């Protein structure tokens, strides 16, 4: 499952995805924080995506995760676009595998790569007005 969505992502999004052979499921939610890295109060983030390319990139990242961590690893990625308020989920990554090590590794790999490579952008809107486009940095 590789998706760009406009509606809120629910934590229950991935229920039922695990198969009988999966002994571990690791889920990551990226949540909109109330402060920027420089401490400015943030009211919301605006996300936009080059959707067709982003979805293809999610699939490529999932393929890489299988190559790295095992054929039985499966990864799903859902990223929201439009205005996302503080406390809401902006991105969700799901990794399932027979054992926990591969599931943790695949989930970590996928979210890191999504942030580095997927054609998705975010603009921070500040409580005191204005906004800035933020590129991925090492601490994100």
């Amino acid at each position, binding site marked *: 499952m590789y998706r760009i969505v406009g509606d809120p992502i629910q934590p229950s999004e991935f229920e039922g995805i695990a198969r009988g052979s999966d002994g571990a499921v690791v889920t990551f939610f990226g949540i909109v924080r109330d402060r920027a890295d420089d401490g400015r109060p943030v009211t919301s983030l605006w*996300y*936009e995506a080059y959707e067709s*390319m982003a979805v293809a990139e999610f699939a490529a990242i999932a393929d890489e995760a299988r190559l790295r961590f095992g054929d039985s690893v499966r990864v799903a990625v859902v990223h929201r676009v439009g205005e996302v308020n503080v406390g809401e989920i902006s991105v969700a990554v799901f990794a399932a595998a027979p054992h926990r090590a591969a599931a943790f590794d695949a989930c970590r790999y996928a979210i890191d790569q*999504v*942030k580095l490579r997927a054609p998705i*952008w*975010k603009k921070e809107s500040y409580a005191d007005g204005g906004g800035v*486009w933020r590129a991925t940095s090492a601490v*994100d």
Partner: protein
Amino acid sequence: MQIRVVAFARLRELLEVPELRLELRGGASANDAWTLLARERPALAAERRSTRVALNGRIVSFDASLAEGDELALLPPVGGG
């Protein structure tokens, strides 16, 4: 020939539209398209170094040749997650 240009984030704001059609001579490159766009929008010049381009969904160099009907995407540094 005519191509479609799509732009995102800061580049979309500078273009003032999310997409536009561009008329180019045959054999023009992505760089030719950029130069034409930047001629009318001087603020784009400062973005050139950090911009990547994708042709029909694949990252290419600015030297890539364009063809009729291509979709050229202008991608600023990404920031998903």
